[in-house]
């Protein structure tokens, strides 16, 4: 599903180049469960952002579902993000003035879906996260775990093929973090590919496939672990 070939991402800082990604070649199957680990600054977020089409590589090609998406226009990339990819962020990134329902509705509004259909989809997504009772709550009326589940509902409401989660448990305590991980794994069990960047080895080791990064390179690629 995801094909990265010789991906480079250089940042220019002053007159120096930082090689955030240095010749990364990576294939990820549809429906896979992948964790990305590694020290701070090793390029985990950069890799995830390129997979999510939030960032463009400075070299290499990226194929998504067989289609070369490396040089798509801004509008085309936005469309792909909307249709194929769900994001879950460490900082949740819920719009504070909108209710849980309205936050989840956002990607469908951007997709140009009709209101009646939207309502149905949002209700389903919130129900799947066990948040039906919280639909009218604003983010500041929700716990951290609930906020992240709203964010997950938002990521899944468009029925994407892949969910990209950058340290989804980073702002959560152990209990609600575990809950969020199990929620994501449940989605993966339904066939959505899951890519999680994490610092927490306990979280990372649950993945079927574990990638370790070092200095912008894929350092280790461990497969075969069954989720515990």
């Amino acid at each position, binding site marked *: 599903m995801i094909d990265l070939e010789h991906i480079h991402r250089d940042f220019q800082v002053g007159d120096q180049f930082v090689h955030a990604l240095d010749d990364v070649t990576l294939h990820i199957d549809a429906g896979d469960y992948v964790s990305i680990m590694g020290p701070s600054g090793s390029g985990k977020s950069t890799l995830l952002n390129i997979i999510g089409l*939030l960032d463009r590589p400075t070299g290499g090609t990226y194929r998504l579902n067989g289609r070369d998406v490396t040089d798509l226009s801004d509008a085309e990339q936005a469309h792909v993000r909307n249709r194929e990819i769900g994001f879950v962020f460490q900082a949740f990134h819920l719009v504070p003035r909108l209710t849980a329902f309205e936050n989840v509705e956002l990607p469908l509004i951007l997709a140009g879906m009709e209101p009646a259909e939207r309502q149905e989809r949002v209700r389903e997504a919130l129900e799947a996260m066990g948040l039906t009772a919280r639909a009218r709550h604003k983010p500041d009326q929700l716990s951290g775990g609930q906020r992240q589940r709203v964010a997950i509902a938002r990521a899944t409401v468009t029925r994407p093929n892949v969910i990209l989660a950058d340290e989804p448990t980073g702002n959560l305590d152990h209990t609600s973090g575990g809950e969020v991980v199990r929620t994501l794994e449940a989605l993966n069990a339904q066939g959505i590919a899951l890519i999680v960047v994490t610092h927490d080895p306990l979280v990372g080791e649950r993945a079927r496939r574990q990638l370790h990064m070092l200095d912008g390179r894929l350092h280790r690629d461990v497969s075969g672990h069954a989720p515990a």
Partner: protein
Amino acid sequence: MRLHSRDAAVFAWGALRGYPARTGLMLLAMAIGVAAVVVLTALGEGARRYVVGEFSALGTNLLIVIPGRSETGGFSPSTLMGETPRDLTIADAEALTRSVNVRRVAPLNVGQSEVSWGGRSREVVIIGATHEYLAIRKWKLGQGQFLPVAKWDRAIPVAVIGGRIRREIFGPHRALGEWLRIGDRRYRVVGILASKGRSIGVDVEDLVIIPVASAQQLFNTPSLFRILVEARSREAIAPAKRFVIETLQRRHQGVKDVTVITQDAVLATFDKILGALTYAVGGIAAISLAVAGILIMNVMLVAVSQRTAEIGLLKALGASRQEITVLILTEAGLLSATGALGGLLLGLLGNGLIRRVLPVLPAQTPLWALLSAIGVAVLTGLLFSILPARRAARLDPVLALSRR
């Protein structure tokens, strides 16, 4: 673009309501700008209508003959001053009655003199006129009669007085039939003007009218201040004017030494001046709209940087640059349209207030001003939001989302 404009409007409206203080301030700035345009143009238009109304009341078929030739032949302050190279006479005025295009002629003299009766006295404007003068000025008589129909060169000792003169000189006493002293002569009061009549530059309450020949004696002059000629109709104005000029040229040994102002020309001049004034005042008020536009730009820039994470998120969720631009512009458009509408209401309210306080001034904003105020407001709002919108559209989503 997949985003529906209706959804964009709802989202933008929510964003505006999310920051009530900022939104309120912007609305106020826009509203004040629009209200200023509405009220100021209403004042200009009101002044124009007031003057036009006054002139119409005076009769637009009027020709004013002034001794002395003005260069332009039009209306200018120096012609109104009536500098005299060759005098107009009562005989000149009589000659002007002999045309089918002329309905009435009134020779005029004006001066100031002391008026007294029974020990009370005061300085008053004295007008020397004829019987026709009342009809030409469209004034009304309160009591008695106006100057009698008589040969114009007969100095009959009668006077018609204004309401205030009657009150202040005669007090509780009967004025009609009394002998009023003007200068060193005495005149019998035959009529009192009704106080209702209004006229530009003349206070009907505060004058005394005597026959023109009497005024010539009183002021010791053989000449006239001017001659009023009323044309028979609007169409008769031009031929009447030609007739007046030719007649007087003939009578003055072939010298064209008079100026004829048509009431029409004066009116047109005032109309033009006041119309231009309305545009100017409207334009000045529109500057406040531009200021409001700049304010909107600043506020939208702040809004964009304040909502960086939100914009980054929208991009992650599938908003293209174009959609972000549309969202920001929708926000600005809603803001300025709402502000403009509020300003419209405020301005119309102000107009109502002015009409109540100054009933003589028909303060009403012309339609062009209403439409352009709203148009300019919305346009500046949008125009000044292009920069913030582009900035938002160009935000790097990775940086936008990583900033806490």
